[in-house]
């Protein structure tokens, strides 16, 4: 159940700095914990988060095992052009989760 939530301002003035918030549900298993029988639970985290505006990268982050479960990520973006914001999370197991939002700059 990795379902992302994002919060993007409905519109922004050109040049304005806006805050974008993201949240995704993910267990972020560190690879350090052991189960009841002492076996290591394999690592499974989201290792990369990227945000693109009209296919141009505007923000990205590498994540490591210390990032908590259900990671919350907020960042700032200077409103340069209108278009589509795409958000992607890459899982260790090869899966990617993504969502998008329209971004209007006036």
């Amino acid at each position: 159940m990795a379902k992302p939530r994002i919060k993007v301002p409905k519109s922004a003035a050109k040049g304005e700095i806006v805050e974008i918030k993201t949240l995704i549900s993910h267990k972020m298993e560190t690879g350090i914990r052991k189960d009841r029988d002492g076996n290591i639970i394999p690592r499974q985290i989201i290792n990369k988060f990227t945000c693109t505006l009209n296919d141009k990268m505007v923000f990205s982050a590498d994540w490591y095992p210390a990032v908590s479960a259900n990671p919350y990520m907020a960042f700032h973006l200077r409103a340069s052009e209108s278009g589509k914001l795409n958000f992607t999370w890459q899982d260790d197991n090869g899966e990617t989760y993504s969502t998008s939002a329209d971004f209007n700059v006036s």
Partner: protein
Amino acid sequence: MYAKQLIALTAGAAALAGLSSSALTDGSWGKYQVGDIRSGYTFAEPETRAMQDDDFENPAMLVLDYGAELWSTKDGDANKSCEDCHGDAENSMKGVGARYPVFYGPWGKPINIELRINECRQNNMKAKPYKYESNEMLGMTAFLKYQSRDMPVTVDIGGPNKPFYIKGKEFYYERRGQLDMACKHCHEDNAGNMIRANLLSQGQSNGFPVYRLKWNKVGSLHRRFRGCNKQVRSKPFGYGSDEYVNLELYLAWRGRGLPVESPAVRN
């Protein structure tokens, strides 16, 4: 005897630490305090409170969204969704979270929201009951209680609920487990004091189901009860057991007037 030593120790530590939770700017806790009754919010760290204050940042909202989805999903042999009978949850479920547990005639005893959801699923939807601690149940409970957000907890302890309220109260004051401690030893006598590294709260139930950072997920009130029982080394009761529902009723009464905060964020 062990318990007495433990309490003496923690009381000493608390005197040193002072009150580590800071109040809001005007020195009061606003809606989170009613007389002497203080929500768990007022015992939480500022960072934890900030997570709860912003709905977007609150990770419990992910489960709540799932619950909202289930509300309008058809299920069971009757092929009905909650929405088909109850309509818009915002109207039909408003206030429900604030007054449960209520007396349930067919059972002749109080029922909490979780058990009521399953009653409805089995009787009206002809669907399988949710597992008590499943994401489905937690999501649905969080979603229902969310509809009563900021409404004061007003549980009815009169009439047929009275004997069960008394049972719940007895449970609260009854010593149990190897440590021989009752709920009241921590949450009444020592609320605001430290128990080793933890600040003891009054043990109010108005924020449940909560996202607990220690659990990394949302959990029910009964899960918290079980954790507390295990910590005093007593055998926990089952999810949805009579003992816990009675206690839930009594706790709701203890926290009367506090706003429903579900889903809250706690340590």
